[in-house]
């Protein structure tokens, strides 16, 4: 007798996973008014940071500011919970200035949970999703391990590292997600059954060490900025200023390297136990020692996991070596001689999809209404995940509304670079954002993310009218100040030249515009204050953009020309119904690649590996004949 009753629910959006991608995705769809359910295997671990205890950093800081500019949550959440804030790369050019903040991990997770719990239209459900329901190549919903059916118009997969997760160090392994959380062992098969290609990636994390067993006196203290910069454009520095906690810098040494080399055969990675492909740009310490063999030492950053705990994160020493080797290795480092390991370092293997199966809106090509975001798409990092989360959320709504998708292109944001790279070029390792991946990075600065993306966020509906009006006012102030600086002329008198001399720059013999002076390598906006009699005090965010836009004007102009060239090819649309097999003049490899990726434009086609410039010429000629 079968008395099992099937329980059914109806939603607009079902989000599978409540990590950094899932949070942004579900907040976006719920805030836009769509009934959303977000599934997590552990409600106590929403927006968990299982690896590094920080948000931002080189190029990742850009992503956070872009998400914030679109109306996402990550920037606001880290501003609430940071314990140290720092603008990196200040000695380099403005394109690579990157904001990074240490987070209180527990607080970060709790605050995000609070936000989710108090968002209208958003339900949280602790459950493991085991199946997706697909009919006629279209998503219908998901089923959880209890057999409950959740019908949904769209589904966003944000499974992170949980699909068939396996944690490994030495010869010890367990089939769990990070920190012993349960893995999702069934969903992969349901995806495969629905024609989705699955692959296996790996990533890793270092050990955590008890603060009381670390000798900080032999390490260099890394303090936060005296004047902090908020991540969110909605915050002023004064709103969120607080006492900051230091990080500490130490180094590996030859003994450390010896220990690693001697035991390398016991590493599951080198011994072949780990099959997944790891990130080249976020390597484990054993990787670094083997790869940079002539390097005498590597930097190690000791970072607090939060104010609530004595656990310290050992940045730069991710490892999956056996426990005894980990002890020896960590204890060989200056200041860690007596270290007590609270948690071992480990590697984690997981299933993810080949992102070439996605369109630029992050929707699966073969299943309409099904989206993917975050590590399931082959990326790595909280910020990369969150970026895809908000875009998937926005486009799930566009899908429901039957409207054109929102696609940020490579000249508009790092988000655009990230998604275009993933779905066009694909990736053979966990994809990490880097400034070098952005061709137009001088235009994609962290200081102007709101200028680039807030109009899009407003149009989508994630930016409030009030915030938008403030944004417009800021833009106006920037514009007016630049105009004023260009039209302010400085007299060539003794007073002027005395000030110029003070900054070690050549004297002037005739009147010169203030803009010209700011362009000099020795000067900037702030340093010319004494010369600029009519200057009114302006907000730091305004000053930063004015300074950059004047100082690097020529370079910005040239980069804009590069963007024009790029847009020309981007705007050459390729019809959806194109049959590449009938264009005999394309090389076979190119036909296959073009047919499987189905680029939207000539520009996108030109970035597919295996499609040569000659193939593109052929395509251009072919389209011309159409």
């Amino acid at each position, binding site marked *: 007798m079968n008395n099992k009753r099937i329980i059914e629910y109806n939603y607009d959006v079902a989000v599978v996973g409540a990590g950094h991608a899932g949070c942004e995705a579900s907040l976006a769809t719920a805030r836009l008014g769509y009934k959303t359910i977000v599934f997590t295997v552990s409600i106590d671990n929403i927006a968990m940071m299982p690896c590094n205890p920080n948000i931002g950093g080189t190029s990742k800081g850009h992503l956070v500011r872009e998400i914030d500019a679109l109306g996402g949550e990550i920037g606001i959440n880290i501003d609430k919970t940071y314990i140290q804030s720092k603008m990196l790369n200040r000695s380099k050019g403005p394109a690579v200035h990157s904001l990074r903040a240490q987070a209180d991990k527990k607080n970060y997770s709790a605050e995000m949970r609070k936000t989710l719990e108090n968002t209208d239209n958003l339900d949280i459900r602790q459950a493991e999703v085991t199946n997706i329901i697909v009919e006629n190549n279209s998503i219908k919903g998901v089923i959880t391990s209890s057999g409950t059916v959740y019908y949904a118009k769209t589904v966003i997969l944000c499974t992170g590292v949980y699909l068939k997760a396996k944690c490994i160090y030495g010869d010890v392994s367990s089939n769990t997600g990070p920190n012993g959380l349960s893995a999702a062992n069934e969903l992969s098969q349901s995806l495969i059954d629905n024609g989705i290609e699955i692959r296996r990636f790996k990533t890793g994390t270092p050990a955590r060490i008890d603060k009381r067993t670390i000798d900080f006196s032999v390490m260099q203290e890394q303090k936060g900025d005296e004047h902090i910069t908020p991540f969110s454009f909605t915050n002023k520095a004064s709103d969120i200023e607080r006492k900051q906690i230091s990080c500490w810098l130490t180094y590996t040494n030859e003994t450390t390297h010896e220990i690693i080399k001697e035991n390398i055969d016991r590493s599951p990675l080198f011994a072949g136990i780990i099959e997944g492909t790891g990130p080249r740009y976020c390597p484990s310490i054993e990787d670094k020692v083997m790869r940079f063999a002539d390097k005498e030492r590597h930097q190690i950053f000791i970072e607090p996991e939060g104010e609530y705990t004595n656990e310290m994160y050992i940045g730069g020493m991710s490892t999956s070596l056996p426990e005894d080797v980990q002890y020896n290795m960590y204890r060989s480092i200056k200041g860690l001689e007596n270290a007590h390991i609270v948690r071992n370092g480990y590697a984690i293997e997981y299933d993810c999809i080949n992102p070439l199966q996605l369109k630029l809106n992050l929707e699966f090509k073969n299943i309409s209404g099904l989206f993917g975001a975050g590590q399931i798409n082959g990326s790595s990092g909280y910020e990369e995940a969150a970026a895809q989360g908000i875009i998937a959320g926005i486009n799930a709504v566009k899908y429901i509304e039957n409207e054109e998708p929102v696609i940020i292109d490579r000249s508009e944001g790092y988000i655009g670079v990230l998604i275009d790279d993933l779905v066009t070029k694909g990736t053979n390792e966990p994809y990490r954002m880097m400034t070098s991946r952005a061709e137009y990075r001088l235009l994609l600065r962290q200081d102007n993310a709101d200028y680039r993306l807030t109009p899009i966020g407003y149009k989508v509906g994630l930016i409030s009218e009030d915030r938008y009006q403030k944004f417009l006012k800021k833009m106006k102030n920037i514009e007016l100040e630049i105009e004023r600086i260009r039209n302010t002329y400085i007299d060539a008198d003794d007073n002027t030249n005395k000030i110029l001399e003070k900054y070690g720059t050549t004297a002037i013999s005739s009147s010169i515009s203030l803009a010209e002076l700011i362009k000099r390598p020795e000067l900037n906006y702030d340093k010319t204050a004494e010369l600029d009699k009519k200057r009114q005090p302006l907000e730091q965010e305004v000053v930063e953009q004015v300074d950059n836009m004047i100082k690097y004007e020529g*370079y910005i102009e040239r980069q804009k020309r590069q963007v024009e060239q790029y847009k020309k*090819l981007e705007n050459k649309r390729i019809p959806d119904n194109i049959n590449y097999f009938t264009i005999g003049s394309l090389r076979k490899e190119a036909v296959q690649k073009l047919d499987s990726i189905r680029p939207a434009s000539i520009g996108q086609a030109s970035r597919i590996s295996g499609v040569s*410039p*000659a193939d593109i010429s052929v395509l251009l000629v072919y389209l011309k004949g159409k």
Partner: protein
Amino acid sequence: MHGDETITAICTAFGNAGIHIIRISGGEAFCVIEKIFKKGKSQKPFRVSEYDSHTIHYGYIFDKDKCIDEVMVSVYKAPNSYTKEDVIEINCHGGSYVAKNILMLITGLGVRMAEPGEFSKRAFLNGRIDLSQAEAIMEIIKSQNDYALKSSVNHLRGNIKKNIEKIREDILNEVAYMEAALDDPEHYELNNYGSILREKILPCIDNLEMLKKSYREGRIISEGVNTVIAGKPNVGKSSFLNYLLKENKAIVTDIPGTTRDIIEYSINIGNICLNLTDTAGIHKTEDYIEKIGIEKTLESINAAQLIICIFDMSREFDEEDEYVLSQIEGKNCIVLLNKSDLECKLDIDKLKSRKIKYIVFSTQTGEGFDLFVKELENMFYSDIIDVENEIFITNARHAEAINNAIQSLKLVINSISEEMPEDIITIDMMDAYNFLGEITGDTIGEQLIDKIFAEFCMGK
């Protein structure tokens, strides 16, 4: 394959050559040849399928029952042919009459006449050659002398490409290093990198400057020197021209499309191609029509790259000669003292005193011609040693791209001097890289395609 139509053309130059080649390319090529060709002395029906690619067959071309010519037929099966399509080449006897008859026979079977360069266009579209090679082929088709041909052939083999690719690689290596250092500062140093970069970029600029300089000579090689013959009436301008035409008759071509009433010729002298303009004699006149003619002459003189100025040795140096001299002063000029076969009445010392270099010449005896050729080569190929091994830029598009790349690299040097950060410097580095890619075909630009295909379809 590209284009469904089968196309044909006579591939050898028009005129009374000893042999002509007719090429047919496309899906119908084999079908067509089977209809018109009978193999061997025994004139058996020809079945392409019975033979391998790259075979040559002796036999006869028939128009129904009438034998037109005894020929050799080469078979190239797709994709192992110039166009990557099925290709037939018929070697027939010379004289344009026979070739034209065969061509008409083929077109009568529904095969379309190829547009100029269309075989190459298909070779490109079918992936047989890349854009820069296609461009070089167009240059070969247009090239007017040996130097130009060799330069184009060099280009075709990819010499320019190799040279430019090397520079691009150098640029990219530096960018890659800087990018690595920006993203992974722990493992890649940027200390003092500016001066290292400067040392790497300066040779690239030098190299590109050389290529840019070669453009002037390259252009002379491929396009010829615009030359004006000047002098007062009856000094022998026309007989000089006729002399050149007679000595070099096989390679005279009229330049079509000129609407001016000044006659133009293109003549190869030594290894230089002169685009000659015969002008009205320069003299003082009140005649309105003549005045217009003389004004035009003076205009031509101003625009010319070379002036061949002729004086009559058998007459006194007069006011009109003086006027002619004043017009050519400071210009690139070769002075010929003509009619050396007659009694000399010209005061040569007068020219010597004005430091005018001259060549004593006679269109009757040919005296001075060798000196004239030598002077020409000195004038235009002073730096040229070995055309076969030197690399010349002959194409305006390439010259422009190189110039743009030089400008970008100079901006890089400038940024280094101003101690700009590396993330800024890479902007101009990438510009240079992309400009050079326009030459190698690695930078995709629609304008490039348009430009090249305009050439492919010339004369359409």
